């Protein structure tokens, strides 16, 4: 456990000692800020209209603001996650510092989990920025906080799964750019697989749709925590981490 923490700490430090973390945070703040302004402005416009038309039913902040924002955040994650994950192992391989890690008395799994946790930490920091914006909704309105919490849990699970896959892809190459491009492609495919389910009902289409990240994230955005979706993300996390450990092991046999 101490080893996991040592690796995680070192990894977090190298994120925050380089421009990566700040760049990711700044980009996220701008993009999320834009979405936030966009959704809220639309919401305000709509509520003014409904007031003028004399409708009295209350407008739902959870349904009209929080839910689309969570969906948007999930898409932003799609772009940022490859950038966070790509350097995890590629950089160590290129600078040969992997030799230090692999000849130190720790298990491969401790290295993998430590690095993955650090990447999760950086992603959670990004989500914290979005939470700052979300706080304004509570200052001026009275949305339900439970669905929001479920949404954030979903975002973390989604990021965990994609980061674990990204970590695995990063063990395969010395080149960060290659790791980044491949991870992005995998993230995007896991996203758009859902579309197949829209027009095709054959078994293979159902499997593809099931594999899609979005179909499992959507319930979280609605505030529904379904064990089926949680299991999907948790098994992807396990798969990614397991493959990373195996890949590190095979690095020893191949190198």
């Amino acid at each position, binding site marked *: 456990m101490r080893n996991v923490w040592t690796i995680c700490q070192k990894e977090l430090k*190298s994120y925050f000692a380089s421009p990566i973390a700040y760049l990711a945070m700044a980009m996220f703040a701008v993009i999320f800020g834009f979405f936030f302004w966009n959704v809220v402005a639309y919401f305000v416009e709509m509520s003014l209209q409904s007031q003028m038309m004399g409708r009295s039913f209350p407008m739902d902040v959870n349904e009209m603001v929080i839910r689309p924002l969570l969906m948007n955040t999930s898409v932003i994650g799609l772009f940022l996650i490859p950038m966070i994950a790509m350097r995890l192992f590629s950089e160590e391989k290129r600078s040969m510092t992997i030799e230090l890690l692999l000849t130190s008395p720790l298990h491969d799994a401790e290295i993998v989990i430590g690095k993955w946790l650090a990447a999760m930490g950086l992603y959670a920091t990004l989500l914290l920025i979005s939470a700052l914006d979300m706080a304004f909704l509570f200052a001026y309105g009275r949305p339900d906080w439970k669905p929001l919490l479920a949404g954030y849990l979903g975002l973390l699970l989604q990021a965990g799964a994609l980061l674990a896959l990204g970590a695995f892809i990063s063990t395969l190459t010395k080149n960060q750019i290659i790791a980044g491009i491949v991870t992005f492609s995998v993230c995007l495919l896991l996203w758009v697989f859902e579309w197949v389910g829209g027009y095709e009902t054959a078994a293979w289409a159902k499997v593809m749709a099931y594999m899609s990240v979005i179909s499992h994230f959507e319930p979280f955005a609605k505030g529904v925590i379904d064990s089926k979706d949680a299991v999907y993300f948790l098994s992807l996390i396990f798969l990614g981490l397991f493959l990373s450990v195996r890949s590190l092991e095979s690095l*020893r046999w191949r190198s």
Partner: protein
Amino acid sequence: MIKVEGLTKRYGRTVAVRNIDFEVEKGQIVGFLGPNGAGKTTTMRILTCFMPPSEGTASVAGYDVLERPIEVKKRIGYLPEMPPLYPEMEVTEYLTFVGKLKGIPSADLARRVKEVVERCAVTDVVGKLIAKLSKGYRQRVGLAQAIIHNPEVLILDEPTAGLDPKQIHETRGLIRSLAGEHTIILSTHILSEVEQTCDHVIIISKGEVVAKDSVENLTSRLRGQATVALEIEGRSGTLEAAEIQHKLEQVGGVSKVAAHETRNGRHSFEVETQPGQDIRGDLARAVVESGWNLNELRATALSLEEVFLELTAAEKSTEGEKA
């Protein structure tokens, strides 16, 4: 302390190391000598559990590298050819990180870092980013990370490669000062380094061990076979090389005479003497008494360098030009 038996490592079809056997006793400094690509790094990487052997076994302090890698790693300090440094860290921060990795208890960590910093003479750069350090300092920080957990065995892959002469001298001194407490294996392709720092030498070529002995034995084995180079000129008229050769062969203690070139009536010879005899005086007298001019006479001991070249380059014959 270190025991290697029948070690073989293949990368696909190429064989990097073939059936190597050797043993290193506790407290020895062993030089691993061989040209580039001979399999030195591969052997070291197997010993440090970075990669497994294809065949054979290797054990450190009684622990097998395949079966008990964690125990082996705890007992080994390793400095790879390229020091494994994180440029974005400061020296103290880096050494603390490595110390934690190697399992030093938190209570001792600060003290150990301070000790190795002093030991490796990096005190004046402790607060600097590793990215800003010169090559010599990087090498020393690399050495500091290798000894931070006070390992029983130190494995150093070309510790002086790329350093300037002064830094090489300092690094060698540092390695020698570590000798008492640690068993050390260092690889190099520089012979004088082995002569200066090691007790024992293992010469490896094309993945096979071609010689292993103590440095003293190896050099004295060579010293026994001294050769003498001569240049002789007739005082007047022409002089046949065969005539001189005949004369030299008659001198007591000569085992072989080889005629080299003849230029402007000057003949060069190389005389191999029997072990343990100095016959330079006899040779000089024989030449002068025959009425020839002795232009040059010089003893050329076979250097470790030549033996190394002979051992590592199979096709190279002993009848080469010798400086």
